[in-house]
């Protein structure tokens, strides 16, 4: 052993004089790195309580717990983190569909009570709540798929030449891929008026079991093919993936499943008790609410008859919705399942006062779902000129096969779905179409996609245009005169109202004016003693929690009852009446009486 090797260890002493590596002050605080994964923070106003964080946590360290002041429309739950289990992997942060969850760069927290190390970030105040640094979501790394599988559509230029469906539909592969984007949070279930089992059928589609998916869908929707094509899809509005990406194409997935079967008879298996044998129910109006009541009562053994004034069931989904959105074979398929299930259908038959009195007498219950069939008028001078017509009448005539007189240049007054449908039908009848709407484009009640499609097909939209009057021109055309509007906000949180800017008049020379401003109830067929009891001042019908009106034994639903005027709300009304009628008839099974509550939702 050399001298060098003997002396070498002593060189360590030299280090006594060098600068230490360690922090000089034992109480010194060292800040965590910019993206340190420290204690959680949560922007509870942004959080929607979807529970994806709890779902991805491999330690089950996150529980979703109810909080006092939830935001309307979310689950009312917020994540609570248990630091006895948390491993700070930050998957919860990276998966968070709303982007509300983060981690601060704080890592020191001293507490004598171990139970304190479990709190609801953002709700239980902590010193690091406003920490600017720490682990956050970053662009370029997503644990959920934000991109929707695009829906194949007809080329806009081709569309107006035909009545073929504009939306082509997902292929099997596209549907499975789209379904795999779902995080199964269930916010959609609460948002759906009918509380359809959305995550369940999406999971079935993802797993390749279309029959199971269809049966899950038929559990609470007897017109899924209609909903799959034209539903207002409030589910997609609350979809957690939609906060930062494209919401799941829930409507298109439902459409995909229903399109896989040409005949539903042997595919849909209703597993319910036939408790209603010997009971009779009459349904006035064959729209979505009436069809719902008919189907779910018929499979329970009730003797059900639907009375419909038009030649086909479907209500507004038949006579209002154009065939390029909802073709007849789709409707017929669903109606066939109704007849297969034993529902008697009387079409082309308008129930009048005396017959209604008789129906009430002869049946255990009567359901009214006649909808809003009376178009409101323009009530501007010139409304009665030839060439001015109502969209509702025009669409109905067109769909029952009557010739409609659309030609040349058309202005459609209104911004709802009816206005858009009337515009796109007019386009296909060869007209040139402009929409005049009183409010802003964002205020249009019509579906955004519908508006986009209409514009792509060549419809021009003039927003903030108040119709003033219609005049006849010398050469027999019409002068549609409108004034510009400014928007005034009366109350916070309400939609602003348009106010005429006086002194300006714009002229538009057209051949037809189609009025689609709104519609009301028509009760002239109803016996006075019934109408008096059940209709309110606006003509709408109020019902109790069982769907029953103030007139014992008469139930109601659909556009007459709810103010949302969409098919899925009508179906929801129908489902409520199905329970109500069974209860009223004294045959409701105990298990169904308790009902199944959807996931908690903040009101």
């Amino acid at each position: 052993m050399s001298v060098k090797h003997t002396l070498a260890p002593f060189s360590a002493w030299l280090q006594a004089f060098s600068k230490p590596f360690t922090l000089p002050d034992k109480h010194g605080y060292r800040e965590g790195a910019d993206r340190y994964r420290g204690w959680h923070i949560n922007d509870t106003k942004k959080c929607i309580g979807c529970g994806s964080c709890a779902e991805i946590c491999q330690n089950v360290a996150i529980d979703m717990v109810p909080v006092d002041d939830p935001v309307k429309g979310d689950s009312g739950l917020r994540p609570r983190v248990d630091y006895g289990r948390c491993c700070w992997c930050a998957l919860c942060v990276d998966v968070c569909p709303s982007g509300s969850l983060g981690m601060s760069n704080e890592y020191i927290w001293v507490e004598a009570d171990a139970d304190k190390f479990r709190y609801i970030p953002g709700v239980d105040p902590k010193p690091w709540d406003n920490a600017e640094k720490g682990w956050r979501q970053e662009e370029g790394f997503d644990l959920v798929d934000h991109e929707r599988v695009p829906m194949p559509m007809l080329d806009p230029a081709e569309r107006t030449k035909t009545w073929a469906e504009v939306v082509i539909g997902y292929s099997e592969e596209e549907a499975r891929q789209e379904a795999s984007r779902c995080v199964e949070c269930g916010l959609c279930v609460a948002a759906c008026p009918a509380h359809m089992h959305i995550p369940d059928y999406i999971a079935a589609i993802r797993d390749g079991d279309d029959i199971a998916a269809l049966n899950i869908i038929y559990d609470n929707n007897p017109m899924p093919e209609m909903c799959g094509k034209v539903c207002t899809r409030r589910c997609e509005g609350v979809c957690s993936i939609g906060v930062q990406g494209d919401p799941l194409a829930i409507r298109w997935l439902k459409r995909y499943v229903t399109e896989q079967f040409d005949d539903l008879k042997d595919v849909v298996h209703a597993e319910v008790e036939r408790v209603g044998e010997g009971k009779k129910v009459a349904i006035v109006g064959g729209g979505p609410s009436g069809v719902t009541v008919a189907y779910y009562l018929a499979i329970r053994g009730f003797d059900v008859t639907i009375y419909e004034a038009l030649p086909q069931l479907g209500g507004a989904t038949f006579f209002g919705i154009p065939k390029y959105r909802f073709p007849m074979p789709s409707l017929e398929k669903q109606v066939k399942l109704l007849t297969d299930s034993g529902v008697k259908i009387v079409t082309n038959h308008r129930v009048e006062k005396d017959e209604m009195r008789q129906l009430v007498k002869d049946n255990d219950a009567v359901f009214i779902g006649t909808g809003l069939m009376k178009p409101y008028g323009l009530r501007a001078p010139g409304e009665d000129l030839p060439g001015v017509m109502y969209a509702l009448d025009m669409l109905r005539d067109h769909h029952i096969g009557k010739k409609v007189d659309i030609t040349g240049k058309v202005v459609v007054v209104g911004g709802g779905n009816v206005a858009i449908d009337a515009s796109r039908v007019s386009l296909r009848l060869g007209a040139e179409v402009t929409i005049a709407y009183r409010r802003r484009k964002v205020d249009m009640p019509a579906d955004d996609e519908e508006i986009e499609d209409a514009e792509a097909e060549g419809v021009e939209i003039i927003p903030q245009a108040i119709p003033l009057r219609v005049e006849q021109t010398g050469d027999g055309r019409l002068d549609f005169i409108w004034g510009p509007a400014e928007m005034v906000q009366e109350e916070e949180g309400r939609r602003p109202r348009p106010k005429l800017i006086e002194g300006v008049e714009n002229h538009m020379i057209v051949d037809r004016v189609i009025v689609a401003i709104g519609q009301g109830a028509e009760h002239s067929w109803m016996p006075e003693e019934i109408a008096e009891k059940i209709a309110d001042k606006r003509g709408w019908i109020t019902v109790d929690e069982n769907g029953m009106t103030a007139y014992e034994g008469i139930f109601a639903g659909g556009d007459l009852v709810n103010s949302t005027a969409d098919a899925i709300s009508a179906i929801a009304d129908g489902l409520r009446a199905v329970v109500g009628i069974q209860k009223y008839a004294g045959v409701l099974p105990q298990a169904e009486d308790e009902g199944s509550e959807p996931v908690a939702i903040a009101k």
Partner: protein
Amino acid sequence: MTTTETAELRRRVQLWFGPQHPGITGNMSVQAWLEGDTLTAGVTHVGYLHRGFEKLMERRRYIQSFPIVCRICVPEPDTNEYLLAAGLDELSGLAAEVPERGRWIRTLVLEMSRLQMNLMTLGGHIGAMAMGAAPNWLIAMRDFVLDRFEELTGGRIYHMFITYGGVRRDLPEGFAERMEADLEAIEEKLPLVDNVIFDSSVFRKRAIGVGVVPEEWVDEMSLSGPIVRAMGIPRDVRKDFPYEKYPELDFEVVTTTGSDIYARAWVRRQEIAQSIDLIRQILRKMPEGPYCAKLPNMLTWTIPPGQTYVRAEATRGEMGYYVVTDGSDKVRRVHVRAPSYVHGVALLERMIPGTNIADLAPLMVSFQVCPPEMER
């Protein structure tokens, strides 16, 4: 052991080395028998960790398995993260989509991980001989690397950073400069460490010629890593079965001769220098671009049925993952082929007879035993 052997052992002094002992390399213990100062036999005992990582993964979605695997070797978690990611990338088809920059960052993380692990192990070598100064310095140097890990991955020890399709984040602004400053600080201190380790008569006396592993055992026992490289065999997965960006990096496999504790420590010392060089190369060559592929929904991700074996060079030797998927959203089976299982159980038990009691701790450190790898 035969009945006669057991009966024989009963007549000797029995000693439990660990699980609570500063010289043991983690949560395991060695039951040893003594004759004088010399160990005549030893049996390893594990089971103190009690987690069952491989089984846990069978009950978790793919993404949920990823925070688990880092625990299979606490001081060097990244090899595990990489191997699970590489295996599932391959089986799912995601491998084709891992962006270039993602692969470079993976390689960077793996090399940083090797660097800090070798710094710590080298400290362990001399710490196990009850010399305190150099381990303190080496741990401090390791902390420089951990600082960089912290700003890159958000964590110092468990990085949970390499994942399917790439990595979780891009390099922060100015990372390369700070890394370079740290590398220089480490390089500056290393001669000092060399002085008190490799030049020290204490270390030389206790390491040279001690714990010599015979070359015949290499293939017989599937030995790998510094143990074989200290015999002069240039075996290194990074060269033999190159992965990620190693084929584009310029390095030689470190070898020496002697096959004793000193040789193994020397290999580690040279690999510290090698890692420093590789990190510099990586930071220089790394292109711009995305760092992770577009991932499918991780809550419902399913992978078609398949199986694969992927391997990487950990500081301890060859680490491999045998991954089986069955088309569901969870792995059917993950088998971790970890070097410590070979080195810490089979090789150690075979090496114990004849070893001086004071040399047991240095011997274990030189095999770099990581107990979670034995009870996965």
